[in-house]
């Protein structure tokens, strides 16, 4: 459990760093954007709203330290300020409306990509020297393909040319959101291409990573021993080799999550998917600084939570982390 406590401590520290970074960026970037924004809005927006925004940013005549404390206080109450794009909606409301779409899409797609990619990596290492090696050059190519380009290609082939799948929105215009089968079907139908994009673009890393660790593991004495004992090859492959090879793979998966999330932001934008990636772009385009910052904070925290989940999986799979204390 000491392992988990240490990791939790690190994530809390990182969360604090993300929060502080969020506080510092508007103050360190050239041109004092918040003041500019306030000046630009003065004519159109009532003073109370500007005051609220200043408060949310913690911009005041007080010392930097006092501003920082005020900012932390606001954050603790979940106050992220008001969005300028969707004025007067609270940033937290905008995020709450778009986050479920992203978590659903990216979560499911990442899980599929991880499971399929890792299994393929195991198989490719096991059947080294067969036709499966042909996947390697393809994976090397896919490993560097931009997410949004995969998205564009899928839109072109399956959306525009074949017209098999819709290429924008999260559900059809004609269905009413609710807990109905029709709505669920529409959501799944619309999520297909974005999800396939994320799976295809992120899977190559999992395949290559798992294959390389697995190939090294297959040379270990305990694998040779297991084979010599006459265990079935399936048992040797999964229970002896893959079980051990998966540990470094989980670590590298956790570290790649930030990259996957970044790619998903671009994917959402190509498909006009109503998640926080599309919202982030809207925020940047409209110089909606409160929205931008709120979304960055939420994305960072989500990645930290996902990392912690990966650590939990690590603890379940590696008994050594549990015995450390004894």
């Amino acid at each position, binding site marked *: 459990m000491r392992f988990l406590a240490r990791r939790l401590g*690190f*994530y809390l*520290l*990182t969360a604090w*760093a993300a929060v502080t*970074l969020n506080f510092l*960026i*508007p103050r360190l*970037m*050239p*041109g004092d*954007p918040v003041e500019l924004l306030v000046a630009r809005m003065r004519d159109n927006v009532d003073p109370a709203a500007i005051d609220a925004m200043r408060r949310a940013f913690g911009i005041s005549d007080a010392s930097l330290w006092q501003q920082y404390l005020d900012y932390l206080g606001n954050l603790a109450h979940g106050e992220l300020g008001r969005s300028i794009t969707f004025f007067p909606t609270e940033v937290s409301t905008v995020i709450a409306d778009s986050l479920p779409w992203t978590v659903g899409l990216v979560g499911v797609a990442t899980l599929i990509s991880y499971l399929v990619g890792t299994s393929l990596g195991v198989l490719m290492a096991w059947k*080294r*020297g*067969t036709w499966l*090696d042909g996947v*390697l050059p393809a994976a*090397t*190519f896919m*490993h*560097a*393909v*931009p997410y*949004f*380009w995969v998205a*564009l*290609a899928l839109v*072109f082939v399956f*959306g*525009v040319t074949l017209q098999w799948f819709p290429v924008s929105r999260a559900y059809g215009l004609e269905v009413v959101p609710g807990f109905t089968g029709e709505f669920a079907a529409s959501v799944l139908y619309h999520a297909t291409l974005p999800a396939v994009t994320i799976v295809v673009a992120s899977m190559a890393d999992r395949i*290559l990573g798992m294959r*390389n660790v697995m*190939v*090294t593991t297959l*040379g270990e004495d305990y694998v040779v021993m297991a084979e010599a004992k006459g265990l079935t*090859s399936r048992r040797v492959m999964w229970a002896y080799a893959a079980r051990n090879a998966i540990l470094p793979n989980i670590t590298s998966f956790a*570290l790649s*999550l*930030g*990259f996957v*999330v*970044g*790619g998903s*932001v*671009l994917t959402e*934008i190509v498909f006009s998917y109503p998640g926080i990636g599309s919202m*982030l*772009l809207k925020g*940047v*385009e409209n*110089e909606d*600084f409160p929205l*931008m*910052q709120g*979304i*960055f904070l939420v*994305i*960072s925290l989500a*990645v930290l939570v996902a*990392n912690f989940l990966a650590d939990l999986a690590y603890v379940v799979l590696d008994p050594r982390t549990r015995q450390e204390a004894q």
Partner: protein
Amino acid sequence: MKIKIGVGILVFFALMALVGPLLIGADPAATSDDGLQGPSAAHWLGTTQTGQDILTQIVYGARISMGVGLLSAVIATVLAVAVGLVGGYFGGAIDETFSVLTNIFLVLPSLPLIIVLAGYLPQRGVASVAVVIAVTGWAWGARVLRAQTLSVRRRDFVAAARAGGEGPLRIIFFEILPVLLPVIATSFLATVVGAILAEAGLSFLGLADLSTVSWGSMLYFAQNGQALLIGAWWWFIPPGLCIALIGTGLALVNFGIDEIANPRLRTIKVRKARA
């Protein structure tokens, strides 16, 4: 073999960026009346909606895309070397602080951070975009270099240098750094791929300098010009393909180096008797 193919791809693109514009000579932004032409003898890769030649744009775009990639990878690598080597050599509190900083930047999602930083930039020129990408992209290299420094600093020649009265900074940058050059080179190559991808993503969103032609901005204009709906595949396929090919080239070089270090990773011809 892998390294040869990889280097071949990279040399091709380097030549394209360096010599290509001189050979073509045309202005990549020049418009013409031949809008949305498919590939033909006059326009090998077709034209955009405003009649710009796509091949010309690809060749000029190579300069910006690879230039930003290289520039920000250089900055990121300098940061990584400073943080990784100094932390790894000194150990103790300095190392703890640097490690935590590295790990924080490793976990924070870089593209959203780049987007937010770019959102605050008053002018999004090539150099400022490169700096923003570098600031978020140094952590991986720093982590690898720190681990390597930890093992190198225990070697005899470092002890000898210390006994000889060399200062710590001289030991780090003149004794340890040369030994780590291969590691620095690999991490540099990986950083270039990340930076080219990040630049492409940022330009695609319209958040980089759109007045210069880069592969990312080509994709931005293709998307905004409804290239997909019109069926103009020649407009968006080439830029993405170039990005992916450069990435493949760099990855092949890196994987090739891995295989030299760990021969088991190589693909083998002989079929082992496994079911």
